[in-house]
């Protein structure tokens, strides 16, 4: 992820800024131009809670180079109380303990480093609640 691309995504990655459709009221993350539910095009800003529930998940054993040290790790589709869905890594857990229905908190973490001398990329990961 080159620096400018990371920088452009700061509002959604670092603050979980989402949007709420004015016609059907669904919350969508990250923000888009056309509502996937009703094809509406008018939006209000919405912020996501730092909690959620696992909808579905998988364990990554063969990881991309930047994530090799973290394998095996869980990648999960998380639904927040607002109804938005986002794909997050699940951290601080035993991978086999994570599955549909697992309650999670969202915590600010380092997502990856651009090699040994590039920028550090931050964002959110899910952590089992409790």
């Amino acid at each position, binding site marked *: 992820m080159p620096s400018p691309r990371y920088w452009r995504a700061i509002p959604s990655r670092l603050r979980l800024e989402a949007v709420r459709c004015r016609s059907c009221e669904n919350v969508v993350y990250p923000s888009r131009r056309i509502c996937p539910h009703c094809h509406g095009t008018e939006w209000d800003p919405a912020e996501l809670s730092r909690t959620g529930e696992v909808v579905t998940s998988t364990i990554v054993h063969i990881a991309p180079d930047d994530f090799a040290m973290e394998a095996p790790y869980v990648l999960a589709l998380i639904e927040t109380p607002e109804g938005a869905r986002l794909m997050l890594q699940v951290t*601080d857990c035993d991978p086999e303990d994570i599955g549909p229905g697992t309650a999670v908190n969202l915590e600010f973490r*380092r997502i990856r480093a651009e090699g040994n001398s590039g920028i550090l990329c931050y964002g959110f990961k899910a952590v089992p609640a409790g």
Partner: protein
Amino acid sequence: MAGIVGYGAFIPRHRIRSEEIARQWGKDAAAIRRGLVLEEKSVPGLDEDTITISVEAARDAIERSGIDPLRIGAVYIGSESHPYAVKPSGTVLIDALGIGPEVHVADFEFACKAGTEAMFVALCLVESGRVEYALGIGADTSQGAPNDALEFSASAGGAAYIFGAKDLLVDVLETYSYTSDTPDFWRREGRFYPRHGGRFTGEPAYFKHVLSATRGILKKTGMDPQDFKYAVFHMPNGKFPQQAAKQLGFTKEQIETGLVVVKMGNTYSGSSPTGLAAVLDVADPGDKILLTSFGSGAGSDSFVLQATDLLPERRVTGRKVWSMLDTPVRYVTYGEYAKLREKIILND
């Protein structure tokens, strides 16, 4: 009068026991427990650093304060493990928490006392009227060299404090600082691990500065040790703060709530600020609290604080320090620890 309007702390979930480190290097674990009074220490995950710990602690602080983050006019993070050598940790934090861009940001460094340094400057900017609210943070993911005594203590965590002039959770009644050129512990530019002067870190360094700063603030305020419900001294290990407390006339009961080092290790810049957070988690209105930090090099900052009526109702949200220390923890082996702390040389 200015004081604390919000506070928060964060401690990573991984732990390594003193026995596991002792086993690796053929040392006597019982002697470590007895001599350094350390049971286990926190270990950061591969995805945790000073920035992530600061953001999590500061988020709880903002929630407890109830203020709009845009009103925070200054942000200072004290750490000796800022992830970037050049690019302030605070820049990432303000964008993550919705602070700024109308905000003054700087990173501080002063070995283990960079946190209270950040708190002191944040407090003074509010007192001067220059900013409405200011955020001071102490956080670290400190490294001890393998097979060094520091490896039993160097750990990860931090605490964040928002200072303001109204709706205070804690009054700051007085401050006092004491600093000198004392080369007890240092890390040269570009070196991975710090060096220290062994026994020299005790008498002329830790004890001289902690005792002088504490005696200085007691004299300045005309207060005695028995006037305080709680006291927190910097915790390089479990033994030093207990010895300092005894020499100053404080009791075991006054320091045990803030003595987080036994389970957490020494989180350097986050050490005494996290001890203070543990005290604020339980303090009653009117309780007086003494805080004295220590940073090698060397210096100490002392604060006399008093809990207000607002503290109990505001602290119900947010994570409590002792609950983060007691549950849930993930114990790692020395091998996993070496991987998490990036002590293993890998191929590109």
